[in-house]
């Protein structure tokens, strides 16, 4: 589904701030793959997402989505087929527009049918209501309220629904539960799992929680210094513990995992 061929990105080349954020990264995701990515701060996880989503163009390499070369496609065009969620729950929704209008916008743009003057029909509104009801947050009764009145968790759940209302080719989740309180985070993660698995969406998820990196999905990737240093799936992944993961990280990079956040997240589970 997604194929990255030797992509690299260096920020501020030739200056003292030069940062090799991605170093010839190659990755191939099969249809329906749900991969979790872990790695310390500055390992290049978010940069990888930026490259895939088109926030910037890569210096080298090619990016293929569903067989199509999207290396130089601008971000707004790619995003019709790529859903993306950020850590900040306020980023994905328009606060002064109602829940229904937010959903209508996401639906009308992603479905690609109709023309620029098309509006949502009563049937489609009913479809939105059903989808909202499935979130189990009671939002289906608040469709005419502005999104700004919702809590962070509710907004993130709504963003998730907007990103998947029309099944995307690829879903990018950038620590999308990290800014929520533990209970809400759990709930949003559960929703994510259900939607992604039900609809067999190809998905990449950045997390700092080693436990969920091993428990969720079918594949675990680890990044360090702009490279993918570990890629486990299938049998090799089953029975792998957080300690194993830390050890494998050490043996493949020659360094200890130095991110407190990752280690702490590993401990408290």
């Amino acid at each position, binding site marked *: 589904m997604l194929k990255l061929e030797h992509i690299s990105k260096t920020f501020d080349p030739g200056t003292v701030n030069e940062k090799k954020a991605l170093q010839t990264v190659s990755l191939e995701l099969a249809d329906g793959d749900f991969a979790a990515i872990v790695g310390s701060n500055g390992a290049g996880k978010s940069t990888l997402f930026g490259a895939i*989503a088109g926030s910037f163009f890569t210096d080298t390499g090619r990016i293929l989505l569903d067989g199509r070369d999207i290396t130089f496609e601008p*971000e707004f*065009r790619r*995003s019709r087929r790529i859903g993306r969620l950020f850590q900040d729950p306020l*980023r994905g929704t328009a*606060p002064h527009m109602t829940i229904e209008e937010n959903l209508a916008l996401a639906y009308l743009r992603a479905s690609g049918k109709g023309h*620029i003057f*098309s509006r949502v029909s009563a049937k489609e509104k009913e479809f939105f209501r059903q989808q909202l009801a499935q979130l189990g947050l009671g939002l289906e009764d608040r469709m005419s309220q502005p999104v700004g009145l919702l809590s962070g968790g509710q907004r993130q759940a709504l963003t998730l629904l*907007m990103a998947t209302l029309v099944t995307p080719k690829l879903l990018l989740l950038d620590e999308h539960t990290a800014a929520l309180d533990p209970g809400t985070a759990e709930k949003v993660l559960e929703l994510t799992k259900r939607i992604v698995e039900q609809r067999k969406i190809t998905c990449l998820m950045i997390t700092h929680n080693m436990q969920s990196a091993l428990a969720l999905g079918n594949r675990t990737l680890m990044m360090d210094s702009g490279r993918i240093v570990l890629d486990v799936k299938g049998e090799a992944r089953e029975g792998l513990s957080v300690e194993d993961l830390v050890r494998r990280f050490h043996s493949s990079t020659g360094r200890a995992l130095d991110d407190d956040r990752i280690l702490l997240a590993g401990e408290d589970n």
Partner: protein
Amino acid sequence: MTVMLLQGAVEQGFVYALVALALYLSYRTLDIADLTTDGSFVLGSAVSAAAAAAGHPAAGILGCFLAGMAAGFVTAFLHTRMKIQAILAGIITMTGLYTVNLWVMGGRADLPLLKVDTIFTLAKTLLGGGELAEQYAELITVALITCLAGVLLTLFLKTRLGLSIRATGDNRDMVAASSIDPAFTITVGLCLANGLTALAGGVLAQYQMSSNLSLGTGVVVIGLASLIIGEVVVRRGGVGRCVAGAILGSVIYRVLMVFALRASANPANLKLISACIVAVAIGWPALADRAKLARRKAAAGKGGQN
């Protein structure tokens, strides 16, 4: 006498309501203070007056809308493609428009329409030319134009493109990640807004039977004042509510002006009053915050011995 004055105020209110609608689109929806407004208002009046003088009043109304859209396009191009700040882009276009407007009016600062057909004389003929038609043709015409514009704008803002424009002003972060090209939505929004502003100028020119280069001075402030009065009256809510509020606010503004004039206020003072209304209304939240902080400090000072 008073009834006639009031009717005139309501008629003008409907005309200027088109500017309030334009600012609802550019200022409230796109979050851009578009200073092209002053220029495109005169552009509309110049195009409409010139066309009426040449015997094509209806074409003039259509023409002024298109001319205004072109002006909006220039501002949008300066802002989105040449990365000039929105305010400066508007000022540049407005300044350039001064010369363009002078050209359109044949090099004169004033273009009176004498004994020519306007959309209002056409409307009178259409209504049968009776006494009632004579009395209400203008009111009916301007109300019809403005309400039609309001309804179309409301419907438009619920379409895919309309929703995209609203999201552009509401959350830029979201827009980049949701297949919307902000340069495109800003362009469409500014074109429509300036089309509406020019339409207001065009209707006004045929209404008062003249166009004048200085007609546009302060139009943006008057439009904002109307918009804010409307928001106070109807409270902010959905799109339909806001659009109705903009129209209502403009009518209220004009009626208030009539009372101010009746109280023998100097008309020259009105712009200062409008400016104050806008400054206070927009700055209100900040003023309220300061007052709150001052009270909080005073309270802390009183009980703050420990």
